[in-house]
């Protein structure tokens, strides 16, 4: 019940605050802040004392229910941190924007939806939460409401809904062959007697599910929306979309593969091979695209395409190790990519700069911001002791011991190449910013943003560090 309250509170409170008449925008924003903090309190209570809850019965064996397990709680906690950081960051960012009200309302509503994704107790509930998440985040994408933004919003909407329906296809098959009430169990709940003779079609369905839910995670071939939609949203929304909302796809894949059909079922089949190939392709392609992209936010979006597929690669190894590596990367990427997008947003509102080429000397004008950029980049590239290092280490280990033939060696190789590319598209930005050279004649005035923007970034950097230092302990409950 506590989880239900934590999920519904931001949804209802967000709607109410946006609808009720207020004397001015500041009062409303304060209320939004209060709602966020209260949600955090409720969510933490839920994490500590929450019990599974079943709401509705839609058909025979089909229920809407929420049941938190360690993995769900882990991701739930990451969601909490990210959303809280971004909401506070957004107050200053959105100061001069129109229609702040709608923006914050949907921000909070999607907060609830994403929490629901984390603690869904079965595939149908997950599908419901996943669709709600899409529907409540797409207003964030088209916030600017010009032609390009609306087009990007629709692209996002249709890609996601299409992906979700592919996922639903898998859900139908899994339910058809399920034993018991089809609630998530580590190792799967398939009834082997019912499955016998239908393995082929079930594998195809699971693959459809992986590709479908992988849409949200920007996995090739359904990645097209991500580089369009993420950069066009206002920076706080891009930070959320890239850092944590895209991870909803990862959650769905974990739930489908590890908790419904069971990793055992697809280990060694063509599905695993195809999945690894897709993940590797995405990692490489995303890094390459990011490398050649000149617009910072777009570069970061391509980087997300690549980085989220690291998680997919870990998952595709179909071992506890792989899952663990994926989960560590989920946290570290969420924290570092959140930071990077926040920094990109600060460049836009404070300096009006969108292109990486124009960032010379910025390190002197906003040292704190630039340091955050640097630390987050370190994590993304994978330098110890940041989270990115640990996760890649664990994923590579999982690959090497996965027994997938050539892919066991190819995967670490691609990870290293991608790491080089990542360094190539992030470090020069930082270097230029800090060391513009002797002939630098640009402005040197301090334009550091207020604490409302810097503190969330610093916190997220700390999270990336924590992921690196304590990632193994945090994920030790799994399996």
């Amino acid at each position, binding site marked *: 019940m506590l989880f239900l309250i934590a999920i519904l509170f931001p949804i209802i409170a967000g709607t109410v605050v946006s609808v009720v008449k207020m004397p001015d925008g500041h009062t409303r924003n304060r209320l939004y802040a209060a709602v966020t903090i209260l949600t955090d309190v409720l969510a933490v209570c839920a994490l500590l004392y929450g019990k599974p809850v079943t*709401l*509705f*019965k*839609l*058909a025979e064996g*089909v229920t*809407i229910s929420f049941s938190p397990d360690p993995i769900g709680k882990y991701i739930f906690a990451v969601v909490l941190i990210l959303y809280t950081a971004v909401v506070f960051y957004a107050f200053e960012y959105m100061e001069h924007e129109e229609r702040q009200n709608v923006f914050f309302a949907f921000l909070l509503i999607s907060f609830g939806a994403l929490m629901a994704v984390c603690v869904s107790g079965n595939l*149908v*509930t997950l*599908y*419901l939460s996943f*669709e*709600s998440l899409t*529907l409540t985040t797409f*207003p964030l994408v*088209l916030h600017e*409401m*010009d*032609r390009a*933004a*609306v087009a990007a*919003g*629709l692209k996002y*909407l*249709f890609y996601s*809904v*299409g992906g979700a*329906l*592919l996922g*639903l*296809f898998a859900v*139908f*098959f899994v*339910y*058809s062959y399920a034993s018991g009430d089809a609630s998530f169990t580590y190792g799967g709940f398939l009834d082997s007697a019912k499955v016998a003779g*239908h393995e082929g*079609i079930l594998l195809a369905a699971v693959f459809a599910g992986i590709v479908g839910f992988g849409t949200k995670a920007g996995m090739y071939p359904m990645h097209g929306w991500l580089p369009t939609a993420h950069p066009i949203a206002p920076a706080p929304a891009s930070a959320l979309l890239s850092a944590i909302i895209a991870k909803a796809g990862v959650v769905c894949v974990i739930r489908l593969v590890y908790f419904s059909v069971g990793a055992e079922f697809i280990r060694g089949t063509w599905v695993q091979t195809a999945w690894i190939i897709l993940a590797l392709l995405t990692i490489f392609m995303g890094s390459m695209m990011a490398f050649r992209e000149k617009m910072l936010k777009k570069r970061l979006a391509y980087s997300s395409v690549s980085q989220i597929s690291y998680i997919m690669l870990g998952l595709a190894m179909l071992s506890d190790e792989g899952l663990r590596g994926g989960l560590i990367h989920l946290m570290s990427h969420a924290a570092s990519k959140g930071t990077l997008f926040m920094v990109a947003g600060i460049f836009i509102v404070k300096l009006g700069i969108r292109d990486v080429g124009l960032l010379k000397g910025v390190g002197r004008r906003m040292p704190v911001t630039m340091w955050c950029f640097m630390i987050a980049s370190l994590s993304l590239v994978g330098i110890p002791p940041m989270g990115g290092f640990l996760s890649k280490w664990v994923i590579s280990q999982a690959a090497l011991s996965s027994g997938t033939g050539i892919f066991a060696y190819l995967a670490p190789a691609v990870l290293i190449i991608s790491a080089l590319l990542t360094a190539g598209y992030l470090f020069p930005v930082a270097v230029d910013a800090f060391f513009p050279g002797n002939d630098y004649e640009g402005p040197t005035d301090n334009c550091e943003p207020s604490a409302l923007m810097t503190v969330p970034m610093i916190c997220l950097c700390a999270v990336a560090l924590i992921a690196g230092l304590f990632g193994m302990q945090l994920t030790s409950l799994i399996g």
Partner: protein
Amino acid sequence: MSPLFLLMPIILPILGGFGIFFLGFEEEKKRNIYAETIVVLTSVLVLIALFTVRHDPVQVYSFTNGFSVDFHLDGAGMLFAGMVAIMWPLVMLYAFDYVRGTDRQNLFFSFFVMTYGVTLGVCFASNLTTLYVFYEILTLVTLPLVSYYEDHESLYAGRKYAAYTIGGASLAFFTVAIGTVYGHGGDFIYGGSLLRPGTSTLMQAAFIFGFFGFGVKAAIFPLQKWLPTASAAPTPVTALLHAVAVVNSGVFAVVRMAWYIFPAEQMKGSYAQLICIYTASFTLLFAAAKAVKERHFKRRMAYSTVSNLSYMLFGVLLLTPAGLQAGLAHMLFHGIIKAALFMCAGAFMHVTGKSWIYEINGVGKRMPYTFAVYTLGALSLTGIPLFCGFVSKWLLITAGIADGTPSGVVGAVALIISAFLCAIYSLSVSVRAYFPYQGSDRFPDKSGGGSPMLMLIPMTVFAVANILFGIAPGPVIAFIGAIAKGVI
């Protein structure tokens, strides 16, 4: 109570409808009260009948030996009649505001009320002949409604409608004759009433004829074209007749034929079944694609109806009880959803005088409530859980998969793709309404107001039903399951 009681709700609206015409009401208000009274009374009679009437058939008139007009009340009839009885009075309310200010309103309401009785005739028919008679009359009484505006477009729509449906009925007449001659006088008996094996060539031909013949009203490909054209009719007609009563009569007739005349179990896997089920799977995809392409609001909804009718036919033609259950459930739920969607489309057209999708930009600000109802319907139609559309879609696809045959799986895949297309064609309207891009011509302000109250009430009722059936479908699904297993 004796099944003769079933005649009352059939005759009352037919006579009442004539009454409007002959009494020639001068005053609008009086006429409206009269019409609504008749309709509500009929609904009350139907509800009484549903709970009290015995389930055995009664003969009313015999043409010749074997061909007779019989009525009975069985599960499938109860479902359809109950659905129609709830919806008719509500759509009637909507119609009062909608046709206000047009000529010949008496004629409109006269036929609108009569159609109610005829539809109930289809529900309560207990053999092929009776079904056929009411099926034909249904075409005739709705014809003036389709051509109501009497402009070029409506007249063309009316002609097309008549040609298609009467043509279809004549195809089906072959099946009626075969079913009557080679069966128990064409009586509807769960599990089939044919005395010959259903798989002989003649019977299979009869099955196909019947499917495409009755399927015209259910807008099966390649005979679907009349339905989008017929959306030229006033919206209450489209909302009730072309989303519920008339088109569902087509589906209902196919149900009667496939399950109550032909031995469903035996027909499974026959050529007849395969041809029909693949046609349904194709139609549901094809029409969804057409709906995405269509730019006229009501025609888009009409194509969506074509697609959804084939969902039902797909379920019915799986020829498994689970499939029939799913098909009938979708008949009910789609009726609820689509009536609401059409009402929203109609309210938009009525209030703003516009009818194209691109003209919807920004209307959400002016008619927030109407488009909220629309969005709920669209989500339900796409198949988001907590709305009733998800429930029936779930049943349909799981029935397809459980069936295990290639036709079932192909249909399930087609359903998923069509759901995606549905998301595109229905949600893009909501997006336009609420998130117009800057620089497009938006409505400057809220001038002119939103939908009138009499339109909002029925919409709201349907929206609430949409959610109620979405979160607690248990009892209804159990009832429909009993029908599908032949228990009721």
